[in-house]
């Protein structure tokens, strides 16, 4: 009997309910439903209140701000309707920053997924001290981003960084890593350094792949690569999709490594190398350096809409290739 042939819980035949069950065996059905509803709302209300207060509220406020010239202090701010959005369309700095953020997402997300999944495959094998390896590889992911950013800033400093110290041993002159054209690679490295997060999720996915499928493939003479490509990857595809979507959302909003590599004052954020001046840095500068709360809010709303569109497109284009290992009947 295959997995598909096992009757789901939903399909199991139930004994016919006795007519007097409601009166003799516990509270009436409507009361149970009410209690369940109440319990549901009670358990979810902290999150919903937090969501309304900390997400919906600020988003609505930002939407309102995006129609104004508000700068936080000055008395004569005014409504400009869609003026900020119109300005945004013709602002080349904004589009350049968005382009860099998009390029960063296109580069960093696949690389992170490949790195994380590669590590997961490695530590899923029967290794000596496997637990230790898993811990060591995951460790960078638990280092707070601020700490990681500062470490990288020190490591790659031209005059005092360890990286150039090592290069000097081999007679290579110091490189200005934190300046263009190298700065983008340093930021990419900070992202890849924390690939342990993806490794853990991929590892969980790998352990969920039925062992008998691998054994069957091996008996049929499939190579390790073929097994990985035709069995492991398809079964991991929902996990990969999840990582691609969340990775894309996170990477276009990346700000912390760039902020830390820069002089992280409101004005200092614009002094970072141009290749790292991405969308969120631009938003940060508009808010806190230029005091353009209205324009910066419009930038954020545009980003929100673009992320929604990008997420929708990812789901649309992957709908035929993502394999969900669930019983379709269970949905009924």
């Amino acid at each position, binding site marked *: 009997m295959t997995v598909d042939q096992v009757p789901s819980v939903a399909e199991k035949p139930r004994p016919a309910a006795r007519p007097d069950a409601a009166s003799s065996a516990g509270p009436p059905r409507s009361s149970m439903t009410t209690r369940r509803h109440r319990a549901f709302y009670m358990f979810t209300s902290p999150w919903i209140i937090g969501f309304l207060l900390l997400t919906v509220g600020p988003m609505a406020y930002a939407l309102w701000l995006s129609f104004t010239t508000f700068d936080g202090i000055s008395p004569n701010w005014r409504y400009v309707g869609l003026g900020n959005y119109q300005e945004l369309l013709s602002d080349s700095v904004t589009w350049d920053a968005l382009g860099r953020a998009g390029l960063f997402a296109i580069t960093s997300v696949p690389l992170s997924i490949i790195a994380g999944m590669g590590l997961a495959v490695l530590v899923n094998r029967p290794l000596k001290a496997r637990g230790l390896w898993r811990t060591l590889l995951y460790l960078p992911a638990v280092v707070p981003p601020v700490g990681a950013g500062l470490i990288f800033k020190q490591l790659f400093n031209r*005059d005092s960084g360890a990286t150039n110290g090592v290069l000097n041993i081999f007679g290579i002159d110091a*490189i200005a890593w934190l300046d263009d054209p190298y700065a983008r690679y340093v930021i990419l490295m900070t992202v890849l350094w924390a690939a342990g997060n993806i490794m853990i999720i991929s590892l969980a996915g790998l352990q969920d792949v039925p062992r008998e499928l691998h054994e069957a493939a091996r008996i049929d003479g499939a190579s390790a690569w073929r097994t990985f490509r035709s069995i492991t990857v398809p079964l991991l595809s929902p996990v990969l999709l999840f990582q691609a979507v969340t990775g894309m959302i996170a990477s276009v909003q990346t700000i912390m490594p760039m902020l830390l590599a820069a002089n992280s004052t409101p*004005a200092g954020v614009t002094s970072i190398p141009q290749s790292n001046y991405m969308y969120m840095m631009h938003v940060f500068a508009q808010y806190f350096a*230029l005091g353009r709360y209205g324009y910066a809010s419009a930038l954020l709303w545009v980003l929100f809409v673009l992320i929604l569109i990008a997420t929708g497109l990812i789901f649309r284009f992957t709908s035929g290739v993502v394999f969900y290992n669930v019983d379709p009947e269970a949905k009924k």
Partner: protein
Amino acid sequence: MRSHAGASLSRRRFLALSAGGVAGTAALSGCALSTAGAAPGGGESITMMVKLDDISPELIQQAQKELGISITVVQDDITRLIAMLTNGKPPDLVRGLGALDAPYFAARGVAEDLDPYFAKSTILKTDDLDPANDVWRFDGTTQGKGPRYGMAKDFSQDAMFWYNTALFDKAGVDYPSETEPITYEEWLENAKRLVQRKNGQTTVYGGSYNGVNLTVLLTNLTAAAGGSLFSGDFTRVDFTTPEARKALTWYVDYAKTKVGPSLIQPNPDTWDGPTYVANRMAMSGSGYWLGGMINEDPKVAKVSRLAPAPVFEGGRRLSSCQAGTGMWMPKKAQNKDAAWRVFEWFFGEGPAKARAEGGWGIPTLKSLRPLMPQKEDYQKRVFKVQEAELEHFSVTPFTPYVKTEAVDALINQILPAAMNGQISVDTLAGRLNSSINEQMKRGKEQVG
């Protein structure tokens, strides 16, 4: 409609309850930002928005003991200040850089005119105030005149520079005079001879000259070249005037030669102090206040000299204060009288005397000047140079229409291309004009 036992909680009702919860929580969070006037144990209390090292826990206890006023410190943060100003409950005293912040806040009507308070004070007498405090004055158009909106806790003439004689000796460079200013061109030539490099790394900076920030540096360099960066009504900048162009050219040359930290060669220590005292910087364009750090290491202090602010050839000699860090009182402060008593105490009593003795800046009350460090020979020497420089003090007015951070952010974006030789100084000047004037135009509209 009242809910009753056993009734199903509809989605609509749940959302209504949630909205109520949100409103309630919002009200509570509003309370959290409020600035209470009464301390929990009785007495008065105020809120100060400062950097945590501006007022130590010991000083807060001292204030409680001496004034009976409890001080709550809120970390200095412009976004939090804006939030507190917006909800109508700002801190009672706020840290600020008089040279840059005073016109901005005064023009927007959020800063309290402190003239009536000064008029009544027996501790902070106006004839005892050093002229450096004028950076906190603004008459509606020009800085340095009109009502006082704050006071500096100490100050320096930030275009002066410190130099390390040991590094000059090593490079065989003559010491700059301590009485007569050298020119900016000479300063740069010295820096080129003093810089030390190895394997593409800078091991000793020839000199650092970045001002308190780039905006104020370029404003002051232009003034030193005999011009003004701003138009008469402070609504526009012009980097294409001969004086502004001269200032811009000098600074771009400084960055291009890579003799010191700049946007294209950031200092790993982030500021001059640690680098200078580690003997890895031959000259630091910092005023007297850096002496506070230098004096902590007598070995460094003995080889350090303070020199007058350089001049441009044909330019005038001036030596302004680029910061004037101090405090102002928001117009909507809840506890103004208590705040003023703390203000008087902080700027005129125990804390002010302790600061004067520390050497981290020149006291802003003339009567406290004798307290400046003069025990050691090297301290006496520096004191003499500083006393002579005071004759050349002046206020370089700043525009009220933009925050300095805004101009700095725009400069940071445009300047590196010129420093890297990708654009000429003329192109740079044009781009700066267009970008900064657009921001100033918006600021002018906001102020009205």
